[in-house]
């Protein structure tokens, strides 16, 4: 008969993730210690590598751009009660839309090519999520299963498309033709020399726009309202006359389109061509980003920067400390995902109890609520 009350908002969105992160770093520090290196030095290197100078910071932002898109994709679906774990595949096939438009328009101007490529990539990525959405809405196939299966279909399809369709006869490497400069998304370093040689590009502007757009969509539109009703209580949404099947299909399409924006960053902003596996797992990092960011755009932005910093700082770490290998970096990233994503509720019960002890009013309110329930 323990009564608990939800944490205050600030503790839920700030304190809890911070504690989880701290624990992740503590355990990571132990791992570093076990390999015989100094964890404090390692942290210093990561922080400097991620934020300390223009190039490093640029890389952090470049990674964060991808994670914002995939994190938002997961969050939008999550608000409607859907778990889209196919962000990877959706971003991957969206590369087709981006590269086709960019190659077709690379003799014009990026101001023409980029918006059209955004639409094309969004459409293809959206379609790749719409199909699982349609299957769930009409046939009852769960999106968790279908989206992950679509990841595999996507990678097989892309291998075929790159090797058989997009690869020019003149090259041996499995990649598309290179996009001319006019069709590329401009690099931020063209405007701010601060960013050195880092690949951060104007896609980050789309990412920021997407953050704001998703915020408005979820909390300020009727569609977002319907989405949240569906996500919180599907029976109530049927009661309210909201078409659950339609909502599932549209939401999945929006989610896939957001994931598809990764292709703009990668294909048109960094690689300047379509290469195999350009998504590099960003879709899955998006799940951790959305979890840690509590499906809120502000949280997602912060979490995306954190993961961007881990990626970039991690690269730096293996240069500076030879004892820490690439695999060690993956271990540290995995620990962060484990503690902030998979085990994000670890501290919740004890934190709730701590808050109750600190505040008698909350405690009595909690008891009043929990004792009133069994009688009603």
């Amino acid at each position, binding site marked *: *008969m323990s*009564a608990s009350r*939800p944490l205050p908002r600030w503790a839920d969105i700030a304190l809890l993730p911070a504690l989880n992160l701290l624990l992740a770093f503590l355990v990571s520090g132990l791992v570093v210690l076990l390999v015989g290196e100094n964890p404090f030095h390692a942290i210093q290197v990561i922080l400097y590598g991620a934020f300390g100078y223009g190039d490093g910071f640029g890389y952090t932002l470049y990674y964060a751009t991808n994670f914002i898109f995939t994190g938002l994709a997961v969050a939008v679906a999550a608000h409607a009660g859907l778990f889209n774990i196919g962000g990877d595949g959706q971003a991957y096939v969206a590369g087709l839309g981006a590269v086709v438009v960019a190659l077709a328009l690379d003799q014009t101007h990026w101001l023409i090519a980029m918006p059209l490529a955004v639409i094309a990539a969004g459409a293809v990525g959206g379609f790749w999520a719409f199909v699982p959405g349609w299957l769930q809405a009409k046939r009852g196939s769960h999106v968790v299963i279908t989206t992950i299966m679509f990841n595999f279909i996507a990678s097989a399809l892309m291998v075929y498309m790159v090797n058989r369709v997009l690869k020019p006869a003149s090259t041996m490497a499995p990649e598309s033709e290179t996009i001319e400069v006019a069709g590329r998304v401009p690099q931020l370093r063209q405007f701010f020399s601060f960013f050195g040689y880092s690949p951060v590009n104007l896609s980050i502007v789309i990412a920021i726009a997407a953050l704001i757009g998703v915020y408005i969509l979820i909390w*300020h*539109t*009727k*569609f*977002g*309202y*319907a989405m*949240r*009703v569906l996500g*919180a*209580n599907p*029976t*109530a949404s*049927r*009661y*309210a*006359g*909201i*078409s*659950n*099947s*339609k909502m599932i299909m549209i939401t999945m399409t929006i989610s896939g389109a957001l994931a598809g924006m990764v292709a703009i960053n990668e294909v048109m902003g960094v690689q300047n061509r379509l290469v195999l596996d350009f998504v590099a797992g960003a879709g899955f990092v998006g799940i951790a980003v959305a979890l840690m960011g509590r499906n809120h755009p502000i949280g997602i932005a912060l979490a995306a920067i954190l993961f961007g910093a881990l990626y970039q700082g991690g690269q730096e770490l293996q240069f500076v400390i030879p004892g820490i290998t690439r695999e060690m970096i993956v271990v540290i990233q995995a620990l962060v995902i484990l503690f902030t994503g998979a085990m994000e509720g670890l501290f919740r019960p004890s934190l709730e109890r701590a808050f109750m002890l600190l505040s*008698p*009013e*909350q*405690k*009595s309110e909690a*008891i*009043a*609520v929990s*004792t*009133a329930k*069994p*009688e*009603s």
Partner: protein
Amino acid sequence: MNTQRPETAAVPQPANGWAIELEKINKRFGAVHANKDIDLKIARGTIHGIVGENGAGKSTLMSILYGFYTADSGTIRVNGAEANIADSRQALALGIGMVHQHFMLVDNFSVLENIVLGAEDSGFLKPSLNRARKELDRLEKEYALEVDPDAIIEDISVGQQQRVEILKALYRGAETLILDEPTGVLTPKEADDLFRVLETLRAQGKTVILITHKLREIMAITDNVSVMRQGQMVATVKTSETSPEELAELMVGRRVLLRVDKTAANPGKTLLEVQNLVVADDMGVPRVKDVSFAIRAGEIVGIAGVSGNGQSELLESITGMRDQKSGTVILNGKPLSLEGDDGAARARQAGLAHVPEDRQRMGLVTTFQEWENAILGYHDKPAYGSGAFLDIAAAKKAAADQVKLFDVRPANINLKSSLFSGGNQQKIVLAREMEQDPDVLIIGQPTRGVDIGAIEFIHNEIIKMRDEGKAILLVSVELDEIRSLADRILVMFDGVIVGEADPATATEGELGLMMAGINKTAPRTIGIAEQGPLP
């Protein structure tokens, strides 16, 4: 009237002595004083009722007695000896057993296995079961509690399951039984059976503590009754010396009208017409079989029936939440198109409001703030924003108006809906549906789990809607509620409307027989044609 201190003097020292004596029990949860100086004496071999509104402290008190909580101060005496009850095992050892509102049974075990569960004699099951079978046989005979020991729990009725719970307590040697809202899940017939069982228990010298909010049951079965209000014991009286009105007043702290005050209906033109409706449940089993009826402006039609006879499916299909197999629903002369999973939206647009049976599962999104629930189902209306955007200010204004009109407490539209009490949640739903000025209002279980004070308010609002010329369809498992609110009663049994009754003349017995499907030979005054010319 004395509403101050416990009138323990009203109950003199009984012949058989006291089974339970509670003295100056105090329990605090932080700032909430859930039990304040509670004195309670329960005579052995009696049925003692405890009534009070939600949150009055009944459950806390019983939890202290059963060892879930420990009192901050005060003494408990069982059979005259002071007892320190730290957990339910000790309570059982002292002969105190509890039948919970929600049964604690393993669904796919047999009756016998459930009874033995947790009271096995040894590591091997067989001897325990054999002993239990003999003991059970004796208990069943002694207390007239017939249950098939080999039946699987999920196959037997709710009333039978409750018997298993009682047998479980008796098997463990309970001398005093605490029953928490035992009739909430029972049909009237099952409730009567339960009362017979309780009477037998009393005759055999057992003591029964009955927690309920149904005053009719208190009057029917108990010897003494204690009333709790806001953590205090406000009175303990002999049941024969009190009345439901007095108890209601003691519970709420002010005068309460138990009978609904209403004038005769003045029906106008037909607003809702249901023709030959056939509806199946999720498994494809037909639950509503060719049902037809009509409701006119300014009348309340009540559908009575034991729950599970198709009422839920009927409501859900009329309101567009469930697909119908065949039939027509005509609203204001126009057929409603309800197919598809957004049928409820079209029903609302046509002027049909719906207060669902299960407010927490259907009528509310409990994780939402109050104002977000105040527009549920109506969020697409231009009043709450033009185009794609939601006009949050307009929605909040509507919510604030609704909260004020229906006296929702606390009057905080930014509070999470799950934090409101059951009665206030129901008011939120009612306010939302009634304030949209619908032509037809469909209400399922208007006062389920709602405090007595709020029930009065809700009933008055429903009557007010009727007097404004709305057509109201009311489904409730509370026969009393239907009888006092409805102008016409349709009785539903096994998916069919088996009869119509006039609430002014029909007796509970007649209705009960119809609800049990026994009165099938009675003329079926249903269907449009048989209702005579409509104005």
